[in-house]
């Protein structure tokens, strides 16, 4: 065997990195285009994201009421009818999206960030770290969420979606922490992690660059699922009337439709009830359709094929 000539250093590191990133996004596009269902999912999620971003700007701060059309049936002017005050239900759904989605995102970010960091640390360091972190996790898992929220809401009035998300997030990271820990435990036995340690690479590098990317599909999936979970949770809370009705929210709509409009017994408030339900279903569907692509997006083998 002979040593082949050393080739000139092809391209700087900067350009190489940039092209890697470009390839990644091109790969994501390719993965999403593989199935029509994924395109549909992206379209649905994009629609709701747009609603959350610009929805409230499309309508006046106080939505107009029409006292002559309380619980109006669906019509061209009001595709989902009107509510007890004669406000357009579609407008309520659109303007309520921001609160719901923002809470969902905040919750998801907190659960995933906390769960991943704690799970990674526990799994990677094992020993005492593991014991302490996992006991905390167990504690979190044993806290009954709903009763605690009921109690909390009596003493603390949640101000807006951020606080709502924070509370939901702090109550929901346990499952992810456990799952990430067990993933870490199995990954750290893999040859490449051992090799990284043998080469003297820093723990930060090993956790951040070697372990985390291997778990990316898993974390991304959990994040998306956490969004739907948080949406259900907060809508449920508003529906139960546990939280003050300080703004437009799909849960508030459900509550008013059922308890105020008697949607379960009379047909008049039915569109008012179905509209927010449909929104939740559609958003969940969109997310579920995208979750299917996560494995292929973060696994280079599946992405590049």
């Amino acid at each position, binding site marked *: 065997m002979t*040593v082949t000539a*050393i080739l000139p*250093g092809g391209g700087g*590191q900067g350009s190489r990195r940039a092209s890697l990133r470009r390839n990644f996004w091109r790969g994501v596009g390719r993965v999403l285009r593989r199935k029509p269902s994924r395109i549909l999912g992206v379209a649905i999620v994009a629609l709701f994201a747009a609603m959350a971003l610009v929805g409230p700007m499309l309508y006046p701060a106080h939505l107009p009421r029409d006292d002559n059309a309380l619980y109006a049936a669906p019509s061209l002017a009001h595709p989902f009818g009107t509510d007890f005050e004669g406000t357009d239900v579609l407008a309520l759904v659109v303007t309520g999206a921001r609160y719901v989605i923002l809470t969902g995102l905040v919750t998801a970010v907190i659960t995933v960030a906390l769960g991943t960091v704690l799970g990674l640390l526990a799994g990677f360091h094992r020993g005492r770290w593991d014991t302490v972190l996992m006991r905390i996790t167990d504690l979190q898992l044993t806290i009954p969420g709903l009763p605690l929220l009921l109690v909390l809401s009596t003493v603390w009035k949640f101000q807006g979606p951020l606080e709502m998300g924070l509370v939901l997030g702090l109550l929901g990271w346990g499952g992810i922490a456990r799952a990430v820990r067990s993933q870490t435990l199995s990954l750290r036995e893999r040859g490449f992690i051992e*090799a*990284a340690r043998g*080469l003297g690479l820093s723990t930060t590098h090993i956790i951040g660059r070697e372990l985390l990317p*291997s778990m990316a599909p898993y974390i991304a999936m959990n994040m998306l699922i956490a969004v739907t979970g948080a949406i259900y949770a907060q809508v449920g809370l508003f529906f139960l009337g546990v939280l003050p009705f300080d703004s437009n929210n799909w849960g508030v709509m459900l509550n008013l439709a059922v308890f105020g409009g008697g949607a379960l017994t009379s047909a008049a408030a039915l569109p008012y009830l179905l509209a927010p339900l449909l929104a939740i279903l559609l958003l969940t569907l969109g997310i579920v359709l995208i979750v299917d692509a996560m494995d292929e997006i973060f696994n280079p*083998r599946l992405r590049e094929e």
Partner: protein
Amino acid sequence: MIIGTGVTKTYKQRGDVLGGRNVQALRGVDFTVPKGGAVSFIGESGCGKTTLGRIIAGLETYDSGEIVIDGTPMTPLSPRRRRPYFRRIQLIHQDPYSALNPTRTIHQTLRAPLSLRASKTGRPASWIDERAEELLSLVGIDPGYVLGRYPHQLSGGMRQRVVIARALTVDPDMLVADESVSMIDVSMRLSILALLKDLRERLGVSVLFITHDIATARYIGGEGELYVLYRGQVVERGLTETVISAPVHPYTQSLLSAIPVLHGLERPGPERVVPTEALDERQADGGCLFARRCPFRTKRCEAELPILTAGTDPAHQYACFHPQRRDVIPVEAVA
């Protein structure tokens, strides 16, 4: 140079609350790997060869005994202070499929240890990419082809070359190759073995070759020493050619007898040793570890543990009360 004396390792197997069974992976192993030399450890699965390799590569600790690396004993050092010594000994894994991170390109994989090195030695950033390409050329692959690729896009042989290149990023004194070719296609195995041989000859990197395949040990460590391990004990040790052509321990003889004969190219050796029983690690200790399976055992073998001693040739040692040379290896057929 690495010298080990009386290295032991016991694994506690998880049992019930009253305690589990202990498995003695290594029962006081002595070894010497000279600078730039080639040494082979052979034995069947569970003989302790992998554990020994991992201990030597610093990936596992030992219970007692001493390992001296270039004159510095490791036992008195804290784990943190041992690290720089063990970093000079790099393990080449058996499985090139799990030894590379599937989410990172070859460039990223080589870059991480090289940039660490660059920052420690004050080399410019441009050195990193140059060195990565140099190392890939050294292990016989085209840097332009592999650098931007992910591991799954490479063949097993190429991956193993990348793994070797990655080990070379820290300028090691020694490579521990643990069954490094067993998962590679037959036609490509020899080229990887030749690479290890070549690195030893040209760079002076010593090679510790761990395998169950004695013929590959003969190829890579012909002039070096061969250690035959059985249940955590070295039962025979000597120059590779000596142990293969004139084995003395019945276990070595059984191993050599079990190697398939390439009929047409070879004829079976005149003698053949077959163990009287299959391996059972639960059998009681006390006497010779191989006694129960040994066709030549006597009363003494069951009562007393033989220790490694040399015969007429001081370089050829064996742990057997009834050493006898037997011609068990295949003979080349004359066409």
